[in-house]
């Protein structure tokens, strides 16, 4: 080195500049993402209100009039189809938002509107970029679930007050599925229709075979595994336990929650690492 070394005060002022970004970087990224969501804010609000109205009416009122099968019982006796299907629709709505937000928007943030690279040049770290993206979507899912739950109440679909906790378990379900999708999307370099494949061949079957519209036990045994590995089934069952006290062993309820948490942690860490690897070229 030809010049003198930096003085200690200079050096410590340089180090101090990193304190806030290191602490709050994830939140700054989330702020950015939430602001960007405002661009399609009207769509978000419209679908958040419209979806539950349409689904609950069509399934809970329309289809329900044809359903007289035994759907199991809750703490208040036999449940109506509306009560049975509502927690499942809530969890499904969370998964739908997660799928929407973690497919094209994430791919776009790497490629077509490369905001991740601009964030990467700022003090925030790659892991914080992943965190902030996930936090922002989680907040959008909470908002969606709140509205959904409100509509469920209007339809009289939630017998138990504990059902409100279903907002949290549904959000967890959405995040669990979402972080796994984000981890995958972050590996996609060229869009060759992978996003459409995720929706058609992964999310839609999950929706149909996760005990959403009928109890998983009514499926042939060789198809039931889809439910067991599906975060949506675990989230749906949790929601039913909370909303109307669906009878099931306690250990199974614990498994539902543990499975969702495990998938969330694994997917989240994977997403962080993959984003980091992709941005550090």
């Amino acid at each position, binding site marked *: *080195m*030809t*010049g*003198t*070394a*930096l*003085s200690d005060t*200079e*050096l410590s002022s*340089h*180090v101090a*500049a*990193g*304190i*806030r*970004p*290191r602490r*709050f*970087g994830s939140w*700054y*990224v989330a*702020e*950015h993402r939430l*602001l*960007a969501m405002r*661009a399609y804010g009207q769509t978000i609000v419209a679908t958040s209100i419209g979806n539950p109205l349409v689904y609950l009416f069509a399934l809970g009122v329309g289809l329900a009039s044809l359903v007289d099968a035994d759907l199991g019982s809750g703490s208040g006796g036999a449940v109506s189809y509306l009560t049975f299907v509502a927690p499942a629709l809530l969890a499904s709505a969370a998964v739908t938002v997660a799928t929407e937000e973690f497919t094209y928007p994430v791919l776009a943030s790497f490629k077509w*509107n*490369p*905001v991740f*690279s*601009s*964030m*990467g*040049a*700022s*003090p*925030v*770290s790659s892991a914080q970029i992943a965190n902030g993206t996930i936090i922002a979507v989680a907040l959008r899912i909470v908002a969606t679930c709140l509205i959904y739950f409100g509509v469920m109440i209007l339809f009289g679909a939630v017998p138990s007050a504990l059902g409100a906790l279903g907002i949290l378990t549904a959000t967890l379900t959405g995040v669990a599925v979402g972080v796994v999708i984000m981890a995958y999307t972050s590996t996609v370099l060229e869009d060759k229709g992978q996003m459409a494949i995720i929706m058609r061949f992964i999310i839609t079957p999950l929706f149909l075979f996760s005990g959403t519209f009928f109890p998983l036990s009514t499926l042939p045994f060789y198809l039931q595994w889809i439910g067991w590995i599906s975060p949506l089934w675990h989230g749906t069952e949790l929601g039913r336990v909370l909303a109307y006290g669906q009878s099931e062993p306690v250990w199974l309820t614990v498994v539902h929650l543990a499975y969702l948490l495990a998938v969330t942690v694994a997917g989240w860490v994977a997403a962080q690492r993959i984003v980091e690897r992709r*941005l*550090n*070229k």
Partner: protein
Amino acid sequence: MGVAQFGSLARLSPVPAPVITASNLTKKYKDFAAVDGISFEVAPGESFGLLGPNGAGKSTTMRMVGAVSTRTSGDLSILGLDPNSHGPEIRSQLGVVPQADNLDAELRVRDNLIVYGRYFGIPRSVVAKRADELLEFAQLADRAKAKVDDLSGGMKRRLTIARALVNEPRILLLDEPTTGLDPQARHILWDRLFRLKEQGTTLLLTTHYMDEAEQLCDRLVVVDKGAIMAEGSPADLIRLHSSREVLEVRFGSDRNAAVAQQIAGVGDRIEVLPDRILVYSADGEAELAHLLSLGLEPLTSLVRRSSLEDVFLRLTGRTLIE
């Protein structure tokens, strides 16, 4: 008291500590060395350039200095800190203008600055005030609420530079700042960059335009294939590696090579390009007169000052823009 005074005097060294020190800096992708052991230092307030063709390793160097890309080997210190351990701290003092604009098209012009300022932990009220000042500086004040996609190329570039300044950086990294801009937009941008330089901001820029390097750089390195070919001020490099003037003559692409053989001894040196012959000399007009006296009549002739383009051609045998 005497000792204390002496101590503080020792710190007031006439040579300030470099803000960037790269030594044997290397970046490899599998077997390919994009940056192959380059060393340089940048002093505070200095405007330092990396000049070289596409693929020379300039952008990779910038990404390593920007604490975004991890080096494979060598040493790198930015503001006295190692990017491997202090990435966030280093990045918090840098302004980065990447080669391709990466503004957020989902946000309005002013929001791009606000959101970016938040990444540095700047309070909302401060960043709002700064955003307005920067829009003024970037001549975009009347576009504050515009969509990014509605801006021209030059405006996007200025907005990217404004964004890079939102944290009042100590060092500004500019990767090909004016590539793809029309001449007028380039001149506006050069003017803005020159003002920053006057205010004491350290600039590290890459370019493959020699005129840009001559306009903006106090000192530069010529980079080719991941290695440094020469280092110095634009004037020094030209003096060392080229003649004062260059005579450019065209005899038609089919005759250039033949004429070049004929005039082999003329001037200090001759370069034959596909479309023209360059005669390096202290006095271009005299060389032209010499050619005419030999009975050679070029289709066109031009005498100009030597430029960094000539330096590059001399050092690498290739032109900068191929």
